[in-house]
């Protein structure tokens, strides 16, 4: 059971995350001026659900805070509080505290200090929308009494949150010194029956408490032909033992519709209806008090809002302390129209069968593991398909309709991939909050501009860019942007801007964090790198190489360890995380104007179109996206320009040549003329010739990450399983040809 509970709770926390995302989006939209009912309702519902679940899982701090937050949202929703910018600010900071509460509930964080946020919410509630310091401008007319919140909240405490409804006891006199037995009169209303309340159950429940039915009044029964089977004509008079607490009796009526007649009184009370004699009060025969006031009177509720007001209680008889005997009672005030006579269902019964609302898109929650398994299987299917294509003659391919099979397989694959694709918004969603915090911590004013958040990316990518993104944002806020004073001195807007964007280009996704700050101080970066032993003092580095040093392991430019960056991990984590995903990080900086970090990531982590090549006899996969052409070098076409460097003459253009066998330390004594040179284009190093032994095949491969069971290896983007069950390693072209391998062996002092 507890495992099960934990599982469910884990789902609840997922829902919290979703709810928080929804709420933040809504609040951000409100901040941007969208205060439509729909937006507000969305935020309300999100917070409301969090509260509901939190209660169920016993997270009382979270419940209490969400409750207060919800109260404000409810008032905003009901147009009782105008969502002024001040109110929205309070809600945004409440949102942050709510997020912290969720983290605390997960056990990831200590309980947040929510005092300030609570009192800000209180103030909004009390002032009907004017938080301290906010312009009283659009203050809502003080229509209602103080916030309705606190009182019901206390009532919620009772028992297990079962709130008795429909029984109002306040107006009963205090019991006499010697309590007499209880007399309960119960006449279910028509509405009670319409709501599937079964009066006999209530009566039986009372009997279970030791009560007994004294009499049943059938006098209200009309003649048989007039009987409406859906109506209620019977009144029970029930005597209950004096020692029973009143609440036990009233609890039995929890589910009884409020317009039913319910009286719970001590037998001796003088509020007994007129017509009851002394003898009757003492005696064992309780006077039968016919109550006929509420036969049809409450049926037309839909048309008449009047009977609504709050503690809906014992309506007719209590309101008129002396119900007249016999059938004289008038319809109580507010009981409006009469239902159609003899109508089979009156006001509530009319409609035909409800329309099955099918048009709505349904969603189901699927375990990601199942999805991954499916994706793997489809990947294998694609591969089997290409193996089949290889083995069959073109005529046989047509005969078995292989192209059709391939097309279907491809469609399945695309569909499965799309199941995993999600808007990158999810990864972006925590940024606004982070920047609000950073703004407070650094004292800098920071504006955020986000674009491309609907770009769809594989869920695996989204999950893994969270940390790098956090570091990039922190880096931009902490190091990139200047203080307001510094910005003013530089003739800039005192508020800095961070632009967060995502866009898809081909099979890659570009995620950028751009600040308009001071740019990278290359002098300082260089000095720091020398000081930290990352480069030697005389190393010759281009500007770009200096910028790249920010991502070198162990590098941090923060001169004082700030709260935000400089925690020992930094941009090197960004680089290694992104590279582990088969991506890379680019840095572009202009002194005085700002710095842009770009994560370039594969759109999906799953499937790759590749060439099977051999290096020193071993099979590797070379991703086709990088391949420009393949050539068999003529003698003299590849020249050595230095002991370590070779170039290839491509129609007069000299391109550097790299030997993966050397980088990987494989034995290779093959003559260059017996090899092939694959010209690849890398984003960081341009065109490069890569020497391979031969090319075996071209096919799609399913990428299996090495870090699933091992760890990422530089130069490899993963591994794949070939048709014969053997493994081929996937080359990471960017890592193979790009600069890191250059400064690693040479510039490093260590």
């Amino acid at each position, binding site marked *: 059971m507890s495992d*099960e509970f934990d599982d469910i709770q884990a*789902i609840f926390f997922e829902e919290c995350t979703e709810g928080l995302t929804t709420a933040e989006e809504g609040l951000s939209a409100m901040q941007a001026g969208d205060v439509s009912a729909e937006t507000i309702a969305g935020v309300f*519902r999100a917070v409301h659900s969090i509260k509901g679940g939190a209660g169920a899982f016993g997270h009382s701090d979270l419940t209490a805070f969400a409750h207060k937050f919800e109260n404000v949202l409810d008032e905003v929703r009901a147009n009782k509080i105008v969502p002024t910018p001040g109110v929205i600010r309070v809600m945004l900071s409440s949102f942050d505290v709510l997020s912290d509460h969720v983290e605390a509930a997960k056990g990831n964080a200590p309980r947040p200090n929510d005092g300030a946020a609570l009192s800000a919410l209180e103030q909004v509630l009390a002032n009907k929308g004017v938080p301290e310091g906010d312009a009283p401008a659009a203050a809502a007319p003080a229509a209602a009494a103080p916030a309705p919140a606190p009182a019901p909240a206390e009532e919620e405490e009772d028992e297990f*949150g079962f709130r008795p409804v429909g029984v109002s006891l306040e107006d009963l006199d205090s019991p006499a010194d010697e309590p007499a037995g209880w007399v309960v009169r119960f006449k279910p209303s028509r509405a009670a029956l*319409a709501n*599937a309340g079964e009066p006999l159950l209530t009566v039986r429940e009372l009997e279970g408490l030791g009560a007994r039915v004294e009499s049943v009044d059938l006098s209200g029964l009309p003649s048989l032909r007039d009987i409406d089977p859906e109506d209620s004509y019977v009144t029970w008079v029930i005597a209950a033992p004096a020692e029973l607490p009143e609440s036990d009796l009233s609890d039995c009526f929890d589910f009884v519709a409020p317009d039913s007649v319910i009286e719970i009184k001590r037998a001796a009370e003088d509020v007994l209806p007129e017509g009851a004699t002394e003898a009757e009060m003492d005696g064992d025969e309780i006077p039968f008090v016919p109550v006929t006031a509420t036969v049809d009177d409450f049926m037309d509720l*839909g048309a008449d809002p009047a009977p609504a007001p709050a503690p809906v209680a014992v309506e007719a008889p209590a309101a008129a302390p002396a119900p007249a005997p016999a059938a004289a009672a008038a319809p109580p005030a507010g009981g409006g129209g009469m239902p159609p006579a003899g109508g089979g269902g009156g006001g509530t019964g009319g409609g035909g*069968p409800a329309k099955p609302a099918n048009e*709505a898109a349904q*969603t189901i929650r699927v375990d990601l593991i199942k999805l991954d398994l499916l994706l793997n299987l489809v990947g294998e299917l694609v591969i089997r398909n290409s193996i089949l294509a290889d083995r069959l003659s073109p005529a046989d391919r047509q005969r078995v309709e292989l192209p059709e099979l391939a097309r279907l397989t491809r469609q399945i694959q695309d569909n499965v991939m799309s199941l995993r694709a999600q808007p990158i918004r999810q990864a972006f969603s925590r940024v606004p909050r982070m920047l609000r915090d950073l703004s407070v911590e650094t004292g800098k004013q920071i504006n955020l501009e986000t674009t491309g958040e609907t770009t769809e990316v594989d869920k695996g990518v989204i999950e893994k860019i969270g940390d790098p993104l956090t570091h990039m944002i922190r880096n931009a806020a902490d190091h990139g942007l200047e203080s307001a004073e510094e910005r003013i001195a530089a003739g800039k807007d005192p508020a800095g801007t961070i632009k967060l964007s995502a866009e898809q280009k081909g099979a890659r996704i570009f995620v950028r964090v751009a600040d308009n700050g001071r740019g990278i101080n290359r002098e300082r970066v260089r000095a720091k790198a020398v000081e930290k032993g990352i480069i030697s003092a005389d190393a010759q580095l281009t500007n770009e190489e200096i910028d790249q040093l920010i991502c070198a392991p162990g590098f941090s430019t923060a001169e004082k360890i700030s709260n935000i960056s400089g925690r020992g991990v930094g941009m090197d984590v960004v680089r290694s995380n992104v590279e582990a995903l088969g991506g890379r990080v680019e840095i572009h900086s202009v002194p005085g104007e700002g710095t842009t970090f770009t994560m370039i990531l594969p759109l999906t982590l799953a499937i790759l179109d590749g060439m099977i090549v051999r290096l020193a006899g071993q099979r590797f996969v070379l991703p086709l996206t990088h391949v420009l052409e393949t050539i068999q070098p003529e003698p003299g076409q590849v020249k050595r320009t230095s002991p370590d460097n070779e170039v290839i003459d491509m129609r007069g253009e000299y391109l550097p040549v790299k030997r993966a066998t050397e980088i990987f330390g494989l034995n290779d004594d093959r003559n260059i003329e017996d090899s092939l040179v694959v010209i690849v284009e890398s984003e960081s190093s341009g065109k490069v010739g890569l020497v391979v032994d031969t090319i075996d095949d071209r096919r799609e491969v399913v990428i299996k990450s090495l870090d699933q069971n091992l760890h990422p290896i530089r130069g490899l983007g993963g591994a794949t399983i070939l048709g014969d069950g053997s493994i081929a390693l996937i080359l990471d072209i960017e890592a193979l040809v790009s600069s890191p391998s250059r400064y690693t062996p040479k510039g490093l002092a260590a």
Partner: protein
Amino acid sequence: MTKLILTVDDSASMRMLLKTSLTSQGFRIESANDGQHGLERMHEVKPDLLITDINMPKMDGFELIEAVRKVPEFKGVPILVLSTEFSDEKKTRARNAGATGWITKPFEATKLGAAIRRVCP
């Protein structure tokens, strides 16, 4: 006979919590994730009892209750509202729509079971 209960809640965790706690008390549980879905499921499973949340996307609990009560076949099906809401105004609305009873979240499993037996013995 085992009572069949349809629970309607947009929160998966709440649905599962209900399912777990009520199944162990001898009820059979079907569930739906919003009002519209709930209405469809009513026709499919024809439960002995409907338990619904109020705040749900697409079709909220009030609308669901109203829609269910309009179906003659479901007139006699008790409907319990299970919600964190507790305002009397909401309760009145629910009653007017046709709800049988109201239970405020969070609930305690055994007491929820008792409440269910109260309306659906």
